[in-house]
């Protein structure tokens, strides 16, 4: 490498330093530390490198169930929110009246903190809550939805909190689609539903992906809502992490769980991208055959 090349490289590194350096110091290093500490011993007498924490995590059925339950509490609210947010975002594009109506309604949960949302669900749906008392005269009773084994209360509260964010992002992506393109589809013979399916959703896909990502990550690691509304068993990893760390002082296990949660998040997102990419490629393959 000649002198000018060296100068250019050092200039490049200098220019990258503020951004990349920030990420390295405040994001990369802690993450690396979390991963490394998950392989360390618990006390000063234990070996410096050990798989104890990981073995404990995978050998104990309580933790194994926690892994699955965390995954469930990450995916179920994401799917539920998406099922509500997609039509809502599409409806908001339909006309001015619906834009005004839904535009106001969906903002309400935006300004309500998660803990308040959890208490709302508790007050509404718990045994002896508002819904039970309202339905009682009609001879109806609700299934157990708070502290139930499927975490329905958690899913409801999580979705309630996430739907507005999803709607905000997706409707933004949909609003960027030219109105003429939608009109063109209509005049060519597509009804509203077909336009949604064939034109709006594919064109809004980057926004939908962003919304799914945000909701999934926040639901996967959520602590407050499952703590309040979740069942006594299984507990998601987030709750185990708290107990192990602050009550039992088993920090290597906490770090192992944190690492696993991050890996799970990455795996699910890779699977999501693969599915979307597959759909895209499949479409292209069909085009190529046509």
């Amino acid at each position, binding site marked *: 490498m000649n002198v000018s090349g060296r100068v250019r490289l050092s200039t490049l590194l200098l220019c990258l330093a503020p951004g990349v350096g920030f990420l390295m110091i405040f994001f990369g290093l802690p993450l690396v530390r979390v991963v490394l500490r998950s392989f360390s011993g618990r006390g000063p007498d234990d070996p410096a490198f050990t798989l104890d924490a990981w073995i404990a995590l995978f050998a104990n059925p309580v933790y194994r169930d926690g892994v699955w339950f965390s995954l469930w509490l990450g995916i179920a609210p994401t799917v539920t929110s998406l099922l509500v947010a997609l039509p809502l975002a599409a409806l908001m594009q339909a006309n001015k009246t619906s834009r005004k109506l839904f535009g106001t309604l969906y903002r309400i949960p935006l300004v309500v903190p998660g803990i308040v949302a959890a208490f709302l669900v508790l007050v509404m749906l718990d045994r002896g809550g508002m819904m039970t008392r309202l339905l009682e005269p009609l001879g109806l009773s609700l299934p157990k939805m708070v502290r139930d084994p499927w975490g329905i209360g958690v899913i409801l509260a999580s979705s309630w909190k996430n739907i507005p964010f999803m709607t905000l992002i997706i409707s933004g992506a949909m609003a960027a689609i*030219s109105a*003429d*393109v939608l*009109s*063109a*589809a*209509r*005049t*060519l*013979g*597509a*009804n509203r539903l*077909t336009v949604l399916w*064939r*034109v709006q959703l*594919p*064109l809004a896909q980057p926004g939908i992906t962003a919304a799914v990502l945000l909701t999934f990550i926040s639901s996967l690691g959520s602590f407050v809502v499952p703590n309040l509304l979740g069942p006594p068993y299984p507990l998601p990893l987030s709750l185990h992490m708290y107990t192990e760390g602050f009550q039992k002082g088993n920090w290597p296990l906490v770090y192992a769980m944190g690492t696993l949660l991050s890996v799970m998040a990455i795996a699910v997102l890779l699977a999501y991208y693969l599915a979307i990419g597959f759909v895209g490629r499949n479409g292209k393959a069909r*085009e190529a055959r*046509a």
Partner: protein
Amino acid sequence: MDKTLSIRSLVKAYGPTHALKGVDLDVPAGSLVTLLGPSGCGKTTLLRSVAGITDPTAGSISIGGNRIDALPPEKRNFGLVFQTYALFPHMNVEKNVAFGLEMRRVPKPEMARRVAAALELVGLGHLGRRLPRELSGGQQQRVALARAIVIEPDVLLFDEPLSNLDAKLRDHLREDLRALQQKFGTTSLYVTHDQAEAMALADEIVVMKDGEIVEKGTPVDLYRRPVYRFTAEFLGMTNVLPAEIRDNSCRLPWGAVRPVENPHERDAEGVAIRPEDIGISAADGNADGTVEQAVFMGAATHYTVRVPDVTLRVVAAGGQSAIFAPGQPVRLNPPNALRLLRSFVPDRALEAAA
């Protein structure tokens, strides 16, 4: 089936303002009618009402005698070409053109054949696999045209389709578009604010202003014998001169006297003389006016001539005619017969009632 498009008493109100104030219009089967007017005159609202994208407040739209104004756009079988092309950005050219056929559940082999034929017609047979963003504006609009005609629509609707293209491309595509329309004999309604485009394309021009039709007629009739001053000035350049009427004759500002075809016109706003209808020649002795400005345009020379009280536009065509310099005195020879122009008074009754 008779594909005549009939519009009756069409009204579109946005609160107290009326974008359309009861428009009546027929587009005879197989003909191309252009809606011409300045922006905000209601021409696009009218077109979009026909397409079903805009819901009119009152009135009826029918095709071949069947009311269609209650049908959603997907049930009308109309092809719409937009100023913005409005191609589906995530589909390649073939998929774009095939979309309408897919919606009609046309069998695959027939679909492929018709898509290929439509692309061939617009000269893009070789670009079927490209994405819209990989095409030029002109090519994109050709795809949009292919997409609209491949469904064999009852009516073709054009919403300023050439406005986003540069001049040369615009002329070229305009000719192709007219040739295609005549080949298929598809009833067409075409919105534009460009009078040259309207004259080049139309069987009939409908001039609109403030949500109303001012007047309609063939390009030749409207250009040569407009009733309203608005039409005369919107269709090409014109001189509107104060007229001094006496015994069916009109005395022009520089003293020339010519017979008037319609001397009893009420609401007269003056007489119209097209710049190219005035002869200009060198003054030998008594001049009618003085050249103020001369712009040589190649095929013609455009003059501004100062005559007593008014300035006049004069266009002298012909490659070999003499060119007069500014300051030069000239004689002017007006056409043999003149017409008085009526002023167009918009209908305020609707808005007062609302």
